[in-house]
């Protein structure tokens, strides 16, 4: 076993620790230590990865193990791990969001122990997904990540939580049903006639033996399966309700990381393993994701619930992720991953702040709030920064992601993709409209409710949570070069694979 397994082991130990802890203090200690360890581990993996690459190791996936632990040989289900630049970036993102999420749910009530247990289980699913290179284990971790969502929303949520939890879980499960079909399909066509069937992504890619007509069926299944989680139009409708009802840390983790599983799966499974179908069928999904981008943004313009606004904004931004992936030029795909990172961080920040504001005002309706800048300056300033990141202010992460996507998409010369790119570009204006609308109504202006005047500003754990995310957003926005290189190396492999089919 190699050290990537620590990503699963540390949370497991953390769960054991949580299970044994009795009081709030202990729970917090365990959660903080665990999440810090995860963060350290993610950074360590990043450094090791960069060292390996610098040492000239050009293998597609690093830190793979030669003899994976086999669970079920007849279907080649094994715990095979490995990371490339994208996975490393995603692991880091997850660790940061989990770290911030722990502090954002410092005062979770009721059942803090159970809350953190489920949250940790959720993070196990996410980590496991990003380190797996075996289709089945990947799927398994994906499912592990989904189940806790139901409980976390259903128990600790607010508002119409049962409905939302049910809807979210059912829709995502529907997606994973499609996914399971496609994974099994991939397995049974994974090797040329007579060859040994495999679930290992790298081997399937190396064999490249999936017949074209099979790809035609499996690609949409896989893409839609992951697309549901990636909030692709018209399968996004779980997102507004789910996010609106989820407790703060869950919204953060869900929008910040879990939705990225969708995008990650789309390129790692659907596009990478079925390049022919990608080149043939991507136009359908390009239209859908193009719609997502604009549609989400327009929808966000008229919402009045803070979380709904942000959820629709997520639809728009995650639409851009899938949109860019489907452009499958290296630059565009790099932009997609940058957008994932950027959206993950800033949307986590948004949800953290919304949670903190909601925790004080007990309303999320922007019409009932106003002038919060005077009352809680720290939170408001953070909100403005998050907003600015979201609308693509240079120096913050949103800008570089969007620009890379647009420049990459613009490498196509055919009118269809051109027009779609320009349509997607318009989202930067619409984003500005809804972000400024919220900022103007929520933070500026006069105080709407006199009781709000007595509210306090952020406490230290909330500050820590927000600052962690803001620093990450700014770091990504100010120095994007190295992470873009890290990603584009991995993406060019996929891009070239697809390019040979046009």
């Amino acid at each position, binding site marked *: 076993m190699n050290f990537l397994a620590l990503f699963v082991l540390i949370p497991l130990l953390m769960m054991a620790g949580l299970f044994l802890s009795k009081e709030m203090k202990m729970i917090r200690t365990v959660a903080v230590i665990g999440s810090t360890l995860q963060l350290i581990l993610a950074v360590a993996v990043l450094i090791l990865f960069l060292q390996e690459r610098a040492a000239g190791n050009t293998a597609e996936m690093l830190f793979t193990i030669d003899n994976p632990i086999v669970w079920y040989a007849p279907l080649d289900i094994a715990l095979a791990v490995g990371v490339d630049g994208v996975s490393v970036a995603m692991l880091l993102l997850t660790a940061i969001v989990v770290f911030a999420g722990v502090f954002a749910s410092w005062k979770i009530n009721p059942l803090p122990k159970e809350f953190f247990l489920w949250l940790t289980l959720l993070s196990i699913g996410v980590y496991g997904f990003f380190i797996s290179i075996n289709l089945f284990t990947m799927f398994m971790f994906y499912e592990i990540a989904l189940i806790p969502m139901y409980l976390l929303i259903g128990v600790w949520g607010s508002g119409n939580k049962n409905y939302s939890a049910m809807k979210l879980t059912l829709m995502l499960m529907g997606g994973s049903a499609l996914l399971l079909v496609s994974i099994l399909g991939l397995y049974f066509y994974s090797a040329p006639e007579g060859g040994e069937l495999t679930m290992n992504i790298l081997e399937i890619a190396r064999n490249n033996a999936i017949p074209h007509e099979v790809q035609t069926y499996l690609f949409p299944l896989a893409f839609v399966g992951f697309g549901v989680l990636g909030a692709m139009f018209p399968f996004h409708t779980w997102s507004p309700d789910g996010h609106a009802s989820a407790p703060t840390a869950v919204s953060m983790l869900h929008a910040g990381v879990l939705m990225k599983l969708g995008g990650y799966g789309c390129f790692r499974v659907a596009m990478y393993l079925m390049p022919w179908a990608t080149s043939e069928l991507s136009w359908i999904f390009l239209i859908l994701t193009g719609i997502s981008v604009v549609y989400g943004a327009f*929808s966000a313009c008229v919402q009045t619930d803070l979380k709904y606004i942000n959820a629709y904004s997520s639809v728009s931004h995650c639409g851009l992720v899938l949109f860019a992936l489907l452009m499958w030029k290296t630059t565009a795909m790099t932009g997609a991953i940058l957008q994932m990172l950027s959206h993950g961080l800033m949307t986590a920040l948004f949800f953290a702040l919304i949670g903190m504001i909601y925790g004080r005002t007990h309303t999320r309706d922007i019409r009932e709030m106003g002038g919060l800048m005077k009352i809680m300056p720290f939170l408001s300033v953070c909100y403005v920064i998050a907003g600015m990141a979201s609308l693509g202010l240079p120096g913050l992460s949103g800008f570089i992601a969007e620009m890379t996507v647009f420049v990459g998409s613009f490498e196509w010369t055919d009118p269809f993709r051109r027009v779609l790119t320009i349509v997607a570009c318009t989202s930067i*204006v619409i984003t500005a409209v809804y972000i400024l609308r919220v900022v103007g109504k929520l933070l500026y202006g006069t105080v709407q409710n006199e009781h709000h005047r007595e509210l306090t500003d952020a406490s230290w754990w909330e500050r820590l949570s927000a600052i962690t995310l803001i620093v990450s957003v700014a770091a990504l926005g100010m120095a994007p070069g190295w992470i873009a*290189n890290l990603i584009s190396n991995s993406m060019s492999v996929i891009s070239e694979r697809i390019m040979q089919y046009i």
Partner: protein
Amino acid sequence: MEIFNYSFIILLLPMLMFVTLGLCGHKMSHRTAGMLGTSGLFIITVLAYIVAAQYFTMPRIDGVFATVTPYNFTWLQFTESLIIKLGILLDPISVMMLVVITTVSLMVHIYSLGYMHGETGFQRYYAFLSLFTFSMLGLVVATNIFQMYIFWELVGASSYLLIGFYYTKQSAVAASKKAFIVTRFADLGFLIGILLLSFFTKTFDFETLTNGSVSLIDTAAGKSFLGISAASWAMALIFMGGAGKSAMFPLHIWLPDAMEGPTPVSALIHAATMVVAGVYLVARLFPVYVIQTPDVLMFITVIGAITALYAAIVACVQTDIKRVLAFSTISQIAFMIVALGVCTSMELDHEGHGGLGYMASMFHLFTHAMFKALLFLGAGAIIHAVHSNEMSAMGGLRKYMPITHITFLIACLAIAGIPPFSGFFSKDEILAAAFDKSAFWGIWMSLVAGLTAFYMFRLYFNIFWGKEAHHEHTPHEAPKTMTIPLLFLAVVTCFAGFIPFGNFVTPTGLSYDIHLNWTVAGTSIAIAIIGIALATWLYMKPNDKPTRMADSMRSLHTWAYHRFYFDEIYLFVTHKIIFRYICAPIAWFDRHIIDGTMNLMATATQWASYHIRGLQSGRLQSYAVVFLFGALLVAFIVLCCM
């Protein structure tokens, strides 16, 4: 060039100041924060002057000032050829802009010490000012178009923050939002333009684009859309970005509203620096425009000319003094745009004057920055004294505020184009360039120049002469921190016209001696005097002539007063059409159709299961019947098969 190695401090220092003031500002006293910001900016200004001095004293190579790039590092690599670099590019116009920005910014910093005294959020104000200065400086020294875009966005954001400085005031919030969104919309065009341009030329770099090594026309040959070539589209879209920032018609609507910000901010951002970014952008890409896409240049001229006239007419009837100044700014920037637009070639020497407009435009940019900042700061002093923006609250102020009065008058004379004040020289060159292109544009612009003189003096007389309004307490002269910048700028305004501008900034870089064309100059002076005389006759002494005139042209007056209802049109489009007919239906669609489909599926499942649960009744007897019939059916089938 190693001698410019220190130039990065010019960018770094304001950034550091922003961070310091932003993070620690609330712990400082107002005085410390103000002094910190001002002294930091003072250092930057000095450095900028040193840069300018060093740059313009460098030996010319082939008669041209060399373009210096002391820094240029890779920030983000898109593809092999498309790389965003961050760097510093020094050439005559960027050095000139450095001087303008730092000077005006320093003046505004000093002035704000007095003007913003005691305001809550004083530290925040200085932090934002630093941010703005940083972004604007970054914009002008950009080495490539993408760096420019980056800082372009940043100035937009800092402008947003500063307009919305009084964030509890609803109108200020609305204005800041409007400013940001309108310019963002324009930036969309800019972005698409950049994408097009870089797609064809495979570079973002200004030097590569402008020194002729890459030709947009060649690389984009044969590509066209809606009958207009791709090259023209690219350049026109890039100009759209410039038009948004420079408040060109029809994207001008944000600028008058932006006056909701503190007055020094208006002076800095919305008069002297940010709003000329569009002009600067066109000037930056001037070789591409003039050589490769002259049709776009024609378009630019038309836009500029329309804006100039429109803004001048509107300025004549506004009663809010800051609005008058705002429209005057729009009109003056349009002058610069027109000057660029009427250029026909890069040449500017004894044989040809095709590039005169470029020089004139830059010259006017320079002088305008000074006298318009002076006007705004003066207006600020007046507003400070009478606590109102409305002309009706003023009148006869010359007795109370002598320094403001004199400096304001100087600025008015400069903008009206009366020699020897700076505006005269630059405006005269613009008119000359316009006449060079065609008599039509020359006459058009001269007419606008006349209107300028008229509305400026209308403003002047209404404030300082005319009927004295009733004041709650006697207006008094502004404190020293406010009058010193006024005096400084007034001095600059008096003498800037004598700078041999053609020696420094010309399209080709070759030195050019400005010589006045007395026919044009005479005409423009005459027109200016007519305008001033008319204003004097109407407004110097309190009388009812203005009202009578307004009555005689009632409908024109109303339309002009309401800025030809452009705001209403935009409001209609955004609120009525976009919000009501796009956003709301989409939201409805999402809630009811998409969500409804999902809910329908859920309901259908539930309905179906509710209804078929009777099968699973728990009644053993019905099970037995069903079981028996099943068994019989199987038996029957087997029987039939046999």
